[in-house]
């Protein structure tokens, strides 16, 4: 069971990132729970300077951009 968090307050890229992560999770057939973090005080608990951010099992793996599906796949398999 993976815990996936999308950091960012509702920007268009946050939604695209979430959709992409959900797709990769579906493709890989793994179980994961998704959480949208929009509160800045919560977001800033991670070492982030620009949104959207992607957190997998409490580890920030990407910030400020939308990664590729392959990258998300690699992070999910770690």
């Amino acid at each position: 069971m993976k815990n996936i968090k999308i950091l960012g307050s509702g920007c268009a890229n946050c939604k695209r990132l979430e959709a992409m992560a959900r797709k990769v999770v579906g493709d890989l057939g793994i179980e994961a729970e998704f959480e949208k973090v929009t509160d800045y005080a919560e977001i800033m608990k991670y070492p982030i300077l620009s949104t959207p951010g992607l957190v997998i099992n409490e580890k920030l793996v990407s910030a400020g951009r939308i990664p590729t599906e392959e990258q998300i796949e690699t992070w999910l398999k770690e």
Partner: protein
Amino acid sequence: MDNSLTHPAKQNQLRIIALLALITAAWFAAYNLIQPLADWISYSALHLTKGSHLGDAIAFFLYDVPKILLLLSGMIFLISILRTFFSPERTRALLGGKRQGIGNVLASLLGIVTPFCSCSAVPLFIGFVESGIPLGVTFSFLIAAPTINEVAIVMLFGLFGWKVAGLYILSGLIIAIIAGVLIGRLKLERYVEDFVWQMQSTGGLQEEKLAWTNRIERAWESVKEIVGKVWLYVIAGIAVGAGIHGYVPETALVGIMGKQAWWSVPAAVLLGVPLYSNAAGVIPIVSALMEKGASLGTVLAFMMSVVGLSLPETIILRRVLKPQLITVFIGTVALAIIITGYLFNLVL
């Protein structure tokens, strides 16, 4: 074992380079074909008369739309490649330990090349002040980043030439530096929301190593994103501009937007605030207005106001800034824009 030509990564790299060369060649061919094609369609295929209102307006539209869209795609690609070498994390590291003054200049320059979205203004603000970067220096960055807008640079270059594009960048830098220094001098730290100071300083994501193919792929992504967002405004703006070009008489605007009308600069700034993010649609109209007698300082002030005084960013920043500091922020930026506008009207 590692035969370099059959290696998948190498193959991928070759394919991207070949594709890039092909696109570049097509770009130059298309760019050189626009003028003859626009003339041919307007004057030969549509049988419009050269010099007539309608003929000129249509030729202008058919020439400017493909030209600006091609310039946008090409130059945004190059700018995006440059931006893959910068990140907010690196900018923060570069600004760390810099004093007021030199810090403001550096922050404004980095504001041009660092990838930035106003939706990230809050994490960036917190991350900067938390790591000890002075408030004024942080503001210089936050003003320069949206004000010196890549779409605006390209469109000014395409419609006015490199001198005006250069003046725009220069005035954006001056505004960001002056406003940042002023805010720094006023010692307004107490007007930053308290929770910001209570946050733990965080390290920042480790930078990844990028190959050239990654940079090209990322730049291509941002071209699609940016051009996809603005192309409709570009076409609408050029259509209105073409109408003005063909139908409004010369010197019609000297009285209201010329140098003699002292109130035109502040009025232009006020008018620009609600037009946020429509730089793409506004510039072609402004370009046509200038032909009819509007002065450059007024036009530049208007441009700066459209991109620099953005309502959404202000609302977002309210989360970390108390109302007093928001007011000072908007006030100093508006004042700096007005001064720059008068300055250009005076010297040009």
